[in-house]
């Protein structure tokens, strides 16, 4: 048996008459960066939401590290080892960068029902927070308020929060969306740096980024996976060129 | 004897339910479409009741009182939206709760200053004070029948408006979706103001009609406000159909319970205990009903599709 962190088996999800996810089976190998591409409305975010537990599939199964997680809650999946960055940045806006990281550190420590000792001045938590920020190179911005951050910086922070749980699998939903060219280059470098440490399922529109990062690519069109393979195989695939790449270039 | 009483109470419950619907209809749209927690809707009921009562007393003509009060409540609602409410759309729910709570205090106090703290009493004309036999040997007041009929007529009108018109299509969608409204070519600001003023008018109408049956006094709107909030929540915020069904349900439970529970309690309790506990428990039953609905259907019985 292969070493798959994530395995989807015949996942289906309908919204009324629309087949948002149509019999999707997918395997994500450990340590690989696996990209999920497809035109707008192909159902990429719907699929990610089912993997993360925000949406329930109508049928099919989801396995994380060989165990079925189809019926577990978002919080439980996060504990079992899935981290996620959302399409729209999802960070604690009223907190500072370091405070965001400290909350992640507290969650990771599982020592949450402590009512007396102050959290933000706890040296071990501060240290843990900085370690989280260091992975994405944000330790210089620790004291800045998230509401004052630029868009790209928020995306980076969100990635850091997803990594803080030391997940088996990280779901990145368009991490470059809305980021400027410089941010994109930096973010690409950060994600490339994670290769081998963490398994990543990446949704991204920027094809340069996808072909730079991904070791495997799956193409989703109208809810169904029409092709899966290495970047070379995908760029040679006639079906994909017709359905997707052709129209994009 | 008991069955006659029960039938009479069921009719009273219908009348109370229809009245609640008139209040809740506008409020459910204000909550649902504008996502606005409007607590001063009870004040609109009071304003309607006072306008009708004062004019009736001044002119000695009940019909004229009602006819003149309707435009007054419409203008009140329109001005209120224009002056204050429109600045609060899109604010936190707690801001809205607070500001409209302030409005309640203001309106109650203004009425107290204008008309004194005591209740105003008006009578409906003798032509409406008769009885109709709804069943052989079961007379029922004409005036209450009239309230039920007027209420049903309004309900029909609101239903036709929401289900048959282009503006109603947006109302039905139950969401303030700018793309959709743009597609329909509707000026949202005007639409909101119109719905708000119309809602105020229906609430005012409810106040005018129940005025002669209850006492017209400062703060009379708040118990009705709370009940109509219950109605809206049970029915599903933004759903006019849900509000109608829930209003009738609440009207019946509250009214029938208020009479039947004490009678039931008297079979195994002392009379005075039953007289205290019965009505209070009937009032409780309404909230128990609401809590049960919300526990099983957290967005009410008929949540609009857009929500």
């Amino acid at each position, binding site marked *: 048996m292969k070493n798959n962190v994530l395995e989807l088996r015949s996942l289906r999800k309908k919204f009324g008459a629309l087949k948002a996810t149509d019999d999707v089976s997918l395997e994500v190998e450990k340590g690989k960066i696996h990209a999920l591409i497809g035109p707008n409305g192909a159902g990429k975010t719907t699929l990610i939401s089912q993997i993360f537990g925000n949406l329930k599939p109508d049928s099919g199964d989801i396995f994380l590290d060989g165990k079925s997680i189809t019926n577990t809650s978002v919080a439980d999946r996060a504990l079992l080892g899935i981290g996620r960055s959302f399409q729209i940045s*999802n960070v604690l806006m009223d907190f500072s960068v370091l405070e965001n990281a400290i909350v992640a550190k507290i969650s990771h420590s599982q020592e*949450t029902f402590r009512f007396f000792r102050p959290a933000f001045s706890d040296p071990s938590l501060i240290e843990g927070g900085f370690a989280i920020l260091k992975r994405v190179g944000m330790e210089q911005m620790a004291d800045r308020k998230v509401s004052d951050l630029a868009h790209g910086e928020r995306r980076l922070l969100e990635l850091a929060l*997803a990594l803080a749980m030391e997940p088996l699998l990280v779901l990145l939903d368009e991490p470059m969306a809305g980021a400027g060219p410089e941010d994109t280059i930096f973010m690409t470098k950060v994600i490339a740096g994670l290769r081998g440490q963490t398994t990543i399922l990446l949704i991204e529109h920027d094809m340069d980024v996808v072909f730079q990062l991904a070791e495997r690519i799956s193409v989703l069109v109208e809810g169904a996976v029409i092709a899966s393979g290495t970047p070379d195989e995908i760029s040679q695939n006639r079906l994909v060129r017709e359905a997707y790449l052709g129209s994009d270039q | 004897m008991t069955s006659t009483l029960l039938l009479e109470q069921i009719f009273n419950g219908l009348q109370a339910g229809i009245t609640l619907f008139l209040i809740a209809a506008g409020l459910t749209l204000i909550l649902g479409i504008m996502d606005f927690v409007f607590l001063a809707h009870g004040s609109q009921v009071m304003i309607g009741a006072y306008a009708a009562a004062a004019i009736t007393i001044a002119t000695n003509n009940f019909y004229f009182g009602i006819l003149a009060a309707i435009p007054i409540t419409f203008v009140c609602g329109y001005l209120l939206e224009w002056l204050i409410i429109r600045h609060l759309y899109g604010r936190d729910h707690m801001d809205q709760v*607070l500001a409209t709570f302030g409005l309640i205090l203001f309106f109650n*106090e203004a009425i107290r200053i204008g008309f004194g703290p005591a209740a105003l009493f008006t009578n409906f004309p003798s032509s409406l004070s008769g009885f109709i036999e709804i069943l052989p040997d079961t007379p029922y007041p004409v005036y209450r029948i009239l309230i039920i009929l007027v209420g049903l007529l309004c309900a029909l009108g609101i239903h036709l408006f929401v289900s048959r018109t282009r503006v109603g299509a947006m109302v039905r969608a139950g969401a303030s979706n700018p793309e959709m409204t743009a597609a329909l070519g509707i000026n949202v600001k005007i639409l909101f103001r119109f719905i708000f003023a119309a809602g105020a008018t229906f609430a005012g109408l409810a106040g005018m009609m129940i005025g002669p049956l209850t006492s017209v006094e400062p703060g009379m709107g708040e118990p009705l406000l709370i009940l109509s909030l219950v109605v809206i929540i049970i029915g599903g915020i933004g759903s006019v159909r849900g509000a109608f069904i829930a209003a009738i349900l609440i009207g019946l439970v509250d009214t029938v319970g208020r009479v039947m529970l004490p009678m039931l309690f008297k079979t195994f309790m002392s009379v005075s205990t039953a007289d205290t*506990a019965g009505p209070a428990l009937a009032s409780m039953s309404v909230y128990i009903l609401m809590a049960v609905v919300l526990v099983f259907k957290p967005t009410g019985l008929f949540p609009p599709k857009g929500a």
Partner: protein
Amino acid sequence: MVLDLFKKFTTLWIILIVLAFFPIFTSTFDLPFWNDVVMRIMLLGMAAMGLNIVFGFGGMVSFGHAAFMGVGAYCAGISQYYGLDNGWYQLLMSAVSCGILGILIGFLALRTSGIYFIMITLAFAQMLYFFFVSLEEFGGDDGLIMDRSDFIFFDLYEPLRLYYLIFFILATVSIMLMLLIRSRFGVILQAIKSNESRVEAMGLNPLKFKLTGYVISAIICGLSGCLFASWQEFVSPDIMHWTRSGDLMIIIILGGLTYLAGPLVGAIVFLLLEELLPDLLHVLFPPISENWMIIFGPLLIAVVLFGKGGLMGVMGSKLKTAANREKT
């Protein structure tokens, strides 16, 4: 750590210190009436601080916390009715009853959110209100006249004993809350308010934290209600009327809901307005001196429309701009 708390919550400490010495002021100038007003400020301020755990720090708009005050008050009243005069016991009863009720109501109410949460909390409060109206044994609508509870170490009929009992409980609650909102639990609660789905994505179940916060706030409101009964020497369903839940919210927003001291500041302003507006009106417009609400209502609307962040926010931003000016 004590110094740290002092620096962090300066306003709250200043208020507590002023409250501690206030009776000296009233006895010097022979104004015993104001002790009474300040006791009410402390009681409502404490309840509002309790509510603010869910309201300001947890982002849950509960419109039914007066019910917990009522339950606390009836714990005192009913205990005394059956001859259990011990005030400490009554406080314990209030805390336990409100804790259990808080778990039950919170568990059901937290299944909903947004407007539905506001309304379901109101519904439960109304349910309790009518429940106490229905208890003929304890006076129903008319309520129950009672004596001040017996606190063993204090005889509450001695002057100022009640004042300092209330102060002691308020100060204890304040210090606990200072610790609480900076603790891991408090931080997570505020994180949930800021972004619930992010907290969930971090592997935490928000319901657990929201429910815990809800129960703590219910207990604090219960303690306030229990003392309120002794202060008023009377318990009736009126203490838990829905408008009091509204008052508590007003107090919080007036003071500033993101500040621990906000509710106390709000209570001071709210009750001073209640005392002083009639006097002011008596001078300016004698015919409506009783109708102070006609001023207060619009004032409230103005605060919402123009005064974001409450009084603490306004003071805070003034201080901040002053500090910034110094830097530049």
